[in-house]
């Protein structure tokens, strides 16, 4: 038992460190689940309407990919089909980041050494990190259960929903536990856990896209890839429909397996080391590194490649199913009416691509935010100080990262649009329509850059808050895009998201007005950011 000595003290310490971030996550996720149920209650007044909605969800490839498998017509089931995938992704992020924060981050900064030299067992830090993270996941689960019960939904389904979310969080905590043993940096461990999350989403999306609708028409049986994804398992519990508790066994096996692996790996390696051995590097720098832009490229290359690859895959997937939307609307005139109400005269496929890229743009903005916040990371880690002590000026340094973020944003959206256009062309044989698909991607660029400009301005003017507020701005845009209509938010609130202003190209004609305004707002914010950074003190690493 000496291996675990000090675990409880570390748990208390971890809770104290996370006393702001975890409650914010928990409150936000509980609130989101409550809001979705409230919206579904308002939207579906009768059982017949719910049946129709479920049938739509089961048949539509797009909702299958985004939301997962339809699972019957009860109010609870419809609400959780709508909400579960997003809640699960957020819980997974919360849990994984918490574990990495309390393990690899501590090792990277040297804090772990200080703790490890105290009366603390070898396995205590990882155990404490898992306890904090899994505990937070269970609290999210409990919060969601309460939110569902508060709407008068059945007890068993509410409990199953909470349990599914808690179990998803626990599994990703364990995944992050393994990632923290493998990678030597916090950034690497988070990227590894994030990669597993992305892969899980992809497997589930593929499994559900190729699923089969049952005879009832309101339920989708997922294809086998969904069963390979911990993000998919929660949905296979079919909460409020079958409440299939047996699926929890899958979570348990995965959690125990990963936790044992993480402990075993931790036992075999030295403090601070990883399993990926440090390679040696060149003794002299290549000429292309030797400029602010060269350094920015080196630091920013991998996130761009990763995001680019993920968005190309996404583009191919959404492009490939575009053509089937036409068939789907043919068999479902009400859906066709609903779609065409948005833009009379447009084809279903055009509307589909406009809608798809309004979602993809928010995802691409995630890249932009991450790339720009790298500036803050460089500053607080003390790596900016030696750079600005050379003859590189503040604005030149800002520009090196800013240019990269703009170029990267354009590149990932062009790549994603191109991939979608090509895969749509291959499936439909209509390569000419690809220009419209491409336009749907390109028209989003000003909105993504406007969000990026917010990050830039925050970095210049309110650096301490830049990280939190930037991610919050992205989350708000995401919620408005996904749930804005559902939550019946007032127009002024929707207008705060730059993505609200993007014309639904190619379903409607391109209007330059809103795009010019977005670019102008972005330019002003960039000016604010530059002026702010030009006159403020540098944050000095402690």
């Amino acid at each position, binding site marked *: 038992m000496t291996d675990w000595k000090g675990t409880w003290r570390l748990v208390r310490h971890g809770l104290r460190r996370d006393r702001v971030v975890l409650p914010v996550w928990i409150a936000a996720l509980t609130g989101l689940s409550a809001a979705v149920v409230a919206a579904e209650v308002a939207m579906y007044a009768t059982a017949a309407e719910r049946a129709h909605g479920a049938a739509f969800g089961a048949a539509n490839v797009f909702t299958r990919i985004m939301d997962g498998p339809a699972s019957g017509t009860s109010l609870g089931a419809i609400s959780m089909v709508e909400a579960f995938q997003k809640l699960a992704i957020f819980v997974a992020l919360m849990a994984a980041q918490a574990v990495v924060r309390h393990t690899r981050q501590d090792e990277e900064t040297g804090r772990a050494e200080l703790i490890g030299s105290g009366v603390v067992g070898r396995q205590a830090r990882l155990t404490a990190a898992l306890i904090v993270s899994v505990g937070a996941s269970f609290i999210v689960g409990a919060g969601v259960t309460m939110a569902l019960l508060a709407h008068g939904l059945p007890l068993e389904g509410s409990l199953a929903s909470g349990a599914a979310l808690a179990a998803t969080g626990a599994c990703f905590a364990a995944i992050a536990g393994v990632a923290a043993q493998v990678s030597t940096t916090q950034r690497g461990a988070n990227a590894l856990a994030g990669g597993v999350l992305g892969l899980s989403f992809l497997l589930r999306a593929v499994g559900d896209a190729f699923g089969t609708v049952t005879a009832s028409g309101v339920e989708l049986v997922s294809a086998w890839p969904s069963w390979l994804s911990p993000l998919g398992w929660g949905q296979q519990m079919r909460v409020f429909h079958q409440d299939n508790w047996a699926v929890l066994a899958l979570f348990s096996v995965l959690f125990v397996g990963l936790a044992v692996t993480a402990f075993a790996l931790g036992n075999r390696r030295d403090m601070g080391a990883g399993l990926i051995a440090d390679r040696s*590097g060149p*003794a002299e*720098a290549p000429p292309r*590194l*030797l400029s602010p832009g060269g350094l920015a490229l080196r630091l920013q290359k991998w996130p761009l490649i990763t995001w680019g690859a993920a968005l190309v895959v996404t583009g191919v997937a959404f492009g490939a199913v575009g053509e089937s939307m036409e068939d789907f609307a043919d068999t479902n005139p009400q859906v066709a009416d609903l779609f065409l109400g948005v833009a009379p005269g447009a084809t279903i496929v055009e509307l589909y691509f406009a809608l798809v890229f309004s979602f993809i743009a928010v995802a691409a903005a995630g890249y932009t935010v991450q790339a720009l916040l790298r500036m803050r990371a460089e500053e607080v*880690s003390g790596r900016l100080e*030696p750079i*600005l002590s*050379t003859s590189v000026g503040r604005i030149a340094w800002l520009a090196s990262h800013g240019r990269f973020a703009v170029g990267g944003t354009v590149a990932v959206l062009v790549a994603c649009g191109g991939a979608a256009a090509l895969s749509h062309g291959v499936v439909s044989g209509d390569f000419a329509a690809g220009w419209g698909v491409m336009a749907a991607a390109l028209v989003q660029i000003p909105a993504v850059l406007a969000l990026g400009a917010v990050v830039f301005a925050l970095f210049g003017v309110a650096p301490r808050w830049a990280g939190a507020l930037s991610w919050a701005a992205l989350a708000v845009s995401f919620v408005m895009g996904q749930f804005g209509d559902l939550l019946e938010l007032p127009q002024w609130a929707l207008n705060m998201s730059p993505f609200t202003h993007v014309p639904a190209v190619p379903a409607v004609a391109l209007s330059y007005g809103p795009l010019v305004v977005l670019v102008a707002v972005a330019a002003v914010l960039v000016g604010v950011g530059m002026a702010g950074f030009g006159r403020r003190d540098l944050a000095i*690493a402690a």
Partner: protein
Amino acid sequence: MDAAIVTRALVKRYGKTVALDGVDLSVRTGEIHGFLGPNGAGKSTTIRILLGLLRSDSGDVTLLGGDPWRDAVALHRRLAYVPGDVNLWPNLSGGEAIDLLLSLRGGFDRVRRDDMIDRFQLDPTKRCSSYSKGNRQKVAIVAAFASDVDLYILDEPTSGLDPLMEAVFQDVVKEQVRQGKTALLSSHILAEAEALCDRVSIIRKGRIVQSGTLDEMRHLTRTSIHVHTESPVRGMEGRAGVHDLALDAEGATFEVDAEQLGDVLAELTAFGVVALTSTPPTLEDLFLRHYGDELAELTGNGAGS
């Protein structure tokens, strides 16, 4: 130009905390100037204002004839900085980090770079993430001294170096200054400052409390004497200029003011001197003159008074 760095009444506040409370620092061209004070006295804050990384709330700074905030880029071509806490990019090799810093400062001499890497025995192929604190410091030191600049700003540059590397560091600094370069060396390693510095400034609670050459400062303080005699020493109790006297059967230990040193030594010969050690005031003694009260508070006795 006579002065490389002049600050007048430099003030920097963080909310209610006053980090610098009117710093008057003056570094002459061609000297090694020691900037001494314990942690938190304001050394690094002053240095970051000199680098234009922080902005002073009031007061004037002139560095190499320019304003470090306004003319940062132009001035930085002529200076090199070694931070106290060197943070590097984990995925760059040491050699890459050195080349990057050198070329961002404005071009470099590969022969001189390789020579410095050699002298500091740095393995430039290792990733920065696997360097110890001392090796990260070597990267910054090599990057600083491989550049041809007028002014070196060194903020506790050797806190992670071993004694061999410390000696190499001192050689390198002396070489540069012989060629007319200037160095500002912040430190709390007094032996290092004593070995290197022409002049020193002692900072306390955000103010410079004393500035001058070591000789000038020594003159203001006492030499300590330990003497072994044939007969017991007498007549020293209460003698003008003698302090902290401790007598025993075989001799005496005491401190003596600089101006009384000759007379006191003459008087001692009357007791038959067997052995005598005289220790000139160290920088530590000078330092403790200004920090004696703080030390007394910390140790709970009157040491250093």
